[in-house]
C-alpha cells in the first residue's frame, strides 16, 4: 500500500518541473508583449541620450533573438540571479525574500484559523442540515462571498481602531513607536522573540489581529460550506446507516463520517491558500502590510518588468507546491486516488 502511495507521489513530483518550466515561458512571453522599451524604462524619464539607451539595450541583451533572451534569463534564474529591480536597485530575489515572509505569515495564519473554525462549525451545522445554524450559515456564506475583502478590512478598522480604539493603527506589521527587532527571519513576531523583545512581540501580534480577522471573516465560509455539505452528504450514506443500525459505537460512526469529509476539506483549504497568495494584495494595502503582494503592485504600477516576472514565478511556484501537497494529502486521506 505504501509503495503505491510513494509511486503516486513520485509521479506527481516529476510533473512539477515541466509545469514550472511552462510557467516560466508564459511569464516571460507575457512581459515580452508589454508595450514600451525596457531599456528606456530602466533608465527612467531622463533617458534622452540615444547612445546610453543603446548601451542599456545591449547590457540587457534586448537585441538578441527572443529565444536567446529566454535561455539567458532562465539560466540565470536557475542560478539564483533574477536580475535587479530598477526601482529598488536591489537583486529581485533578495527583495522577494524580504517581503514574502510577511505575506506567508498572514495567509498561513488566516488559512489555519479558517480551517479550525470552518471545520468545527461546519461539522455541527452539517449534522443538523435543517437546523437554524445551518440555514443562517448558508446565508452568511453567500453574503461573505459578496463582500470585497478590502472593504471588510476598512470596516473592521473603523469599528476597532476608530470607534472602539482597541486595535492599533493600520500602518504595518509593528507600531511606529516600537523599535523593530533585528531582521533575521523577516517574520516580525519571531524576530522579536529571537531578540527577546517583548514589547515588539506584543505590538507585532496585535497588528496581526485585524488583517487575519478580515481574511477569516470573508474566506472562512468557503471552508465551512464545504465541510458542512460533506457531513450532510455522508451522514445518510448507506455504509454509515448500516454501521449505525448494526449498533456500531457512536464514536466509530463519527470517525468514519469525518474520515470521509477529509478529502474535500483538504482541497478547499488548498484552493483558499492559493487564492490568498495573490488575493491578500488588497488586504495588505489596507493595513500597509508591505508584503509580497504590495511588492507586486508597486512593480506593476512602475512597469518594473523583471520584478513582475519574479513575482509571477514565485506565485506560480507556490501555487504548484500547494497543489502538490494537497494532492499528496488527498492520496493519504483517500486511498482510491493512488490506484
Amino acid at each position: 500500500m505504501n509503495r503505491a502511495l510513494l509511486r503516486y507521489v513520485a509521479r506527481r513530483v516529476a510533473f512539477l518541473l515541466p509545469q514550472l518550466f511552462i510557467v516560466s515561458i508564459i511569464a516571460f512571453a507575457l512581459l515580452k508583449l508589454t508595450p514600451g522599451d525596457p531599456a528606456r524604462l530602466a533608465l527612467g524619464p531622463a533617458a534622452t541620450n540615444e547612445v546610453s539607451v543603446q548601451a542599456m539595450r545591449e547590457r540587457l541583451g534586448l537585441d538578441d533573438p527572443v529565444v536567446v533572451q529566454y535561455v539567458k534569463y532562465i539560466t540565470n534564474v536557475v542560478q539564483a540571479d533574477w536580475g535587479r529591480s530598477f526601482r529598488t536597485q536591489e537583486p529581485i530575489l533578495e527583495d522577494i525574500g524580504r517581503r514574502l515572509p510577511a505575506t506567508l505569515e498572514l495567509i498561513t495564519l488566516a488559512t489555519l484559523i479558517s480551517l479550525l473554525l470552518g471545520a468545527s462549525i461546519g461539522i455541527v451545522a452539517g449534522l443538523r442540515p435543517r437546523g437554524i445554524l445551518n440555514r443562517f450559515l448558508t446565508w452568511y456564506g453567500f453574503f461573505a462571498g459578496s463582500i470585497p475583502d478590502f472593504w471588510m478590512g476598512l470596516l473592521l478598522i473603523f469599528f476597532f481602531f476608530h470607534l472602539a480604539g482597541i486595535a492599533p493603527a493600520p500602518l504595518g506589521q509593528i507600531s511606529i513607536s516600537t523599535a523593530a527587532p533585528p531582521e533575521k527571519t523577516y517574520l516580525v513576531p519571531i524576530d522579536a522573540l529571537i531578540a527577546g523583545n517583548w514589547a515588539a512581540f506584543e505590538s507585532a501580534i496585535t497588528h496581526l489581529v485585524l488583517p487575519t480577522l478580515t481574511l477569516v471573516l470573508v474566506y472562512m465560509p468557503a471552508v465551512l460550506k464545504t465541510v458542512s455539505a460533506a457531513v450532510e452528504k455522508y451522514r445518510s450514506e448507506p455504509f454509515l446507516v448500516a454501521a449505525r443500525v448494526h449498533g456500531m459505537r457512536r464514536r466509530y460512526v463519527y470517525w468514519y463520517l469525518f474520515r470521509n469529509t477529509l478529502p474535500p476539506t483538504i482541497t478547499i483549504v488548498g484552493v483558499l491558500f492559493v487564492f490568498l497568495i495573490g488575493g491578500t494584495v488588497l488586504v495588505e494595502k489596507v493595513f500597509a502590510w508591505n508584503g509580497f503582494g504590495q511588492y507586486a503592485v508597486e512593480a506593476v504600477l512602475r512597469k518594473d518588468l523583471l520584478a513582475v516576472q519574479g513575482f509571477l514565478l514565485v506565485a506560480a511556484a507556490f501555487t504548484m507546491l500547494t497543489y502538490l501537497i494537497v494532492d499528496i494529502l488527498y492520496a493519504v486521506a483517500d486511498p482510491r486516488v493512488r490506484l
Partner: protein
Amino acid sequence: MTIASLGVERRTRSLAGRIWRWFDGDWLFLGAVIALSTIAILGLIAPHLPLADPELPVPEDRLQPPSWSHPFGTDVNGSDILSRVIYAPRVDLLIAILSVLLALAFGSVIGLFGTFFQGRGGIAGLLTELLNRTMDILQSFPAFIVALALAGVVGSDLWSVIGVLTFLFTPIFFRFVRGEVLHIRERLFIEAQTAAGSPLWRVLLVNVSRNSVGAAVVQASPTMGFAILLTAGLAFLGVGVKPPTPEWGLMISSGQEQLYVGRWWPAIFPGMAIAITVFSLAVVGEALRRRLEQ
C-alpha cells in the same frame, strides 16, 4: 372544474400574477432581481436624473457628512457620493456584462468544438488534448495575480480591464461546456442524428450546443459578481480604471484614509453597493441553477 378550464384560467392570469408564479414564492430571488434591475436602470438613466455631476469637484463642499442636499455626503473632491454610486454601474456593470458575455461566447465555442473530438484520435484529438492542457495551466494561476499582471501589461483603461477579465473567465465557461458536451455526445439522440445522416456541423451546432450551453449560462450570473469584485479590486490598487471615473472600487480607495479618522461615508456607501450587487447576482445564479436542475 375541468382541466380545460384550468388551462384557460392560467392563461388569463394578470401579468403580476404570472411573474409571481414564475418566482414561485422565492422572496429572495424576487428581491435580488428587483435590486439588480433598480441598480441597472438607475445607472442607465442617471444622466437624466436630477443628480449632481459625479465627476465635478466642488472644493467648498469637501467631505460633507450625509445631509438632505447630499444624502450620502461628499467625497474628498467635494463630489456628491450618491450621484457617484448611481453612476458607477455604467462602468462596473458594463465591464461585468461585457467580459462575461465575451467569455461565455469564447468558452462555449472552444468548449463545443474542442471537446466533441476529445479521445477520438487523429489531429482533432491531438489538438483537443493541447487545448485542455492549456486551459488547465491558465486556470492553475491564482485569478487575481493574473489579473494584476495582465492589467499592468495591457494598460488600465476600461477596455483593457474587459479584455483581462474575458481572458480570465473563458476557461471557467470552457470547463462547464466541456463537462456537458462529454456527457451529451454519448447520448442516444446524438447517435440517432448522426445515423440518420445529419452532417457533423449540424449535430454539433444544433443538437449538442442546444443541450450543453445551459450550465454555462447559469454560471454567468455569479461570474458577473466575481467580475465586479475583481474590477473594484484592481481599481482599488490603482491598476484598473482611473479617477475621477465613478467606480465603486476607486471610491472606496479614495475614502480609505478618511475612514481612519472617522469619516465613514466616502468608503462605506460604495462598498455596500458592491455587496448588494454581488450578493444579488449570487442569489439569481443559485435560483437559476435550481430551476435548471428540476
